[in-house]
């Protein structure tokens, strides 16, 4: 660090000193908050990512101290390094806000907007982006691009119509696994994520493509349609895993583990371990350990208050302990004369159906009803 000179950069009138070679996006993330531009394709833990989605465009109003001319066009902040004395405008520039709204419109041109069906809803970056930076309506009148459905293995569900071609999953396959078996076929408007010659992905870390996918294009098949993310309780947990760090977030309903994901930081990226390496998790942790007894639970995961995931979750120890029964204490030791067990009436969350242990989405055959 001592050899690297520190560059002074001003982003939205906030000055920060960062080492040379830092990108504008990472400098803005150091400041944090609204100043950090949104990023759909850049992923700090994946080398070579970024520069594709254009959502992180910023205006450089002063190039550097030596050359104070502004840059002629908006630049992608994930691919532009800071210069000494650089002045950047992000949310203070109307040009940037205007362009970002257009970029959202472009990204949504072929997006099916099937959020009510999509499992990513609630933690989808495209949903957040269009909500915060987009416009309400669409001007697109043509048929949206569709693809033939393709199975890419037993654990991962690919919805090509939702893909925004950020290439993050391709980088994951390239950098985390020994052998890449999927990539992007065709060009331009026709390009699509596919496994080459229908090969299924069987690498041990390929499940991480689910975590890096900013939209619902790659989702967990073992969690598919089981529940909405905002009804589940995120819990930090770990286990002794021989292949990965074993530090994960469990998404529970009561004692049932519905989903296992890596722990994500405030930018939606996988957290770093103590040694600085990203905490990617292996497939067996993600897809096969669906029992609470497999895990050591550390405590509830802190989710941003702005997120829908924290809706209906109460502060305190909920999720890690069951509340004590207060009836007899209040009524001087008397037990209730009539007690309705909700499971005796309700057909939801029946005790004899373990949805979380199914390896596929639930079907009509998995449910039974006494009323029919």
């Amino acid at each position: 660090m001592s050899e690297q000179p520190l560059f002074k950069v001003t982003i939205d009138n906030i000055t920060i000193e960062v080492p040379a070679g830092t990108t504008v996006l990472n400098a803005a993330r150091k400041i944090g908050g609204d100043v950090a531009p949104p990023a759909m394709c850049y992923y700090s833990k994946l080398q070579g990512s970024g520069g594709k989605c254009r959502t992180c465009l910023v205006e450089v109003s002063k190039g550097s101290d030596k050359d104070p001319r502004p840059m002629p066009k908006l630049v992608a902040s994930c691919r532009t390094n800071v210069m000494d004395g650089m002045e950047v405008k992000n949310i203070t520039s109307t040009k940037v806000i205007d362009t970002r709204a257009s970029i959202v419109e472009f990204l949504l041109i072929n997006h099916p907007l099937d959020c009510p069906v999509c499992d990513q809803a609630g933690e989808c970056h495209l949903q957040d982006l269009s909500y915060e930076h987009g416009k309400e309506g669409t001007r697109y009148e043509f048929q949206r691009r569709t693809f033939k459905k393709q199975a890419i293995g037993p654990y991962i569900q690919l919805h090509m119509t939702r893909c925004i071609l950020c290439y993050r999953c391709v980088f994951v396959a390239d950098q985390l696994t020994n052998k890449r078996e999927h990539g992007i076929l065709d060009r331009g408007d026709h390009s699509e994520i596919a496994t080459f010659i229908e090969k299924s992905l069987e690498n041990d870390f390929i499940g991480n493509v689910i975590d890096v996918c900013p939209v619902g294009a790659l989702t967990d098949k073992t969690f598919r349609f089981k529940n909405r993310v905002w009804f589940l309780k995120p819990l930090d947990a770990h286990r002794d895993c021989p292949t990965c760090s074993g530090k994960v977030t469990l998404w529970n309903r009561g004692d049932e583990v519905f989903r296992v994901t890596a722990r994500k930081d405030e930018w939606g990226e996988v957290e770093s371990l103590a040694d600085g390496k990203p905490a990617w998790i292996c497939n067996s942790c993600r897809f096969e350990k669906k029992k609470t007894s497999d895990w050591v639970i550390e405590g509830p995961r802190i989710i941003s208050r702005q997120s829908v995931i924290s809706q209906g979750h109460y502060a305190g120890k909920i999720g890690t302990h069951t509340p004590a029964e207060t009836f007899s204490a209040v009524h001087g030791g008397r037990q209730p004369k009539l007690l309705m067990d909700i499971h005796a009436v309700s057909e939801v969350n029946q005790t004899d159906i373990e949805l979380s242990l199914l390896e596929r989405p639930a079907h009509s055959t998995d449910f039974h009803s006494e009323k029919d």
Partner: protein
Amino acid sequence: MQALTNRAKEVSRKPMTLLEKLYLPAIAKGMLITFSHIFKKQPTVSYPEQKRPFSPVFRGLHVLNRDEEGRERCTACGLCAVACPAEAITMEAAERLPGEENLYREEKYAAKYEINMLRCIFCGLCEEACPKDAIYLSETFAPANFTRKGFIYGKDALLIPDAKTDPEGYAKARGIGEPTTAD
């Protein structure tokens, strides 16, 4: 002390006069008021033979809607449940199997859908949250029941009958033919 409003009246503590002590004139006055009501318009209706018209914005019992082809509209997106301030709605989703396309509109549907009518406050936020026009508050009441068990409404009670196969049930659930102030 100065009164806040000028409507305050002093309580009269004067002793009653002879006429007032007799009570009979006051009784006759009261009887006269009672008999005069026989000739006035009745403010009550004899429910259930007669029914009062509902206002068009009345929020009654929920129905789960079907589309034009009779398929269930609900995709179990959970927005009604997250919008519900009383946490009355629960559901479980399932994937549509091949061959079930005539039953469910989208590839995901609510296999189980329940509203706890003991909790529901009929605020209508579920109706507003629904992106698929699947849940509506109809112009009917939740019927009374002797046990609390009867207030857990499942899909068998909520789902509107198919207009093609059961037009009578459909009309009843929609409240068609019932008087409203909209007419």
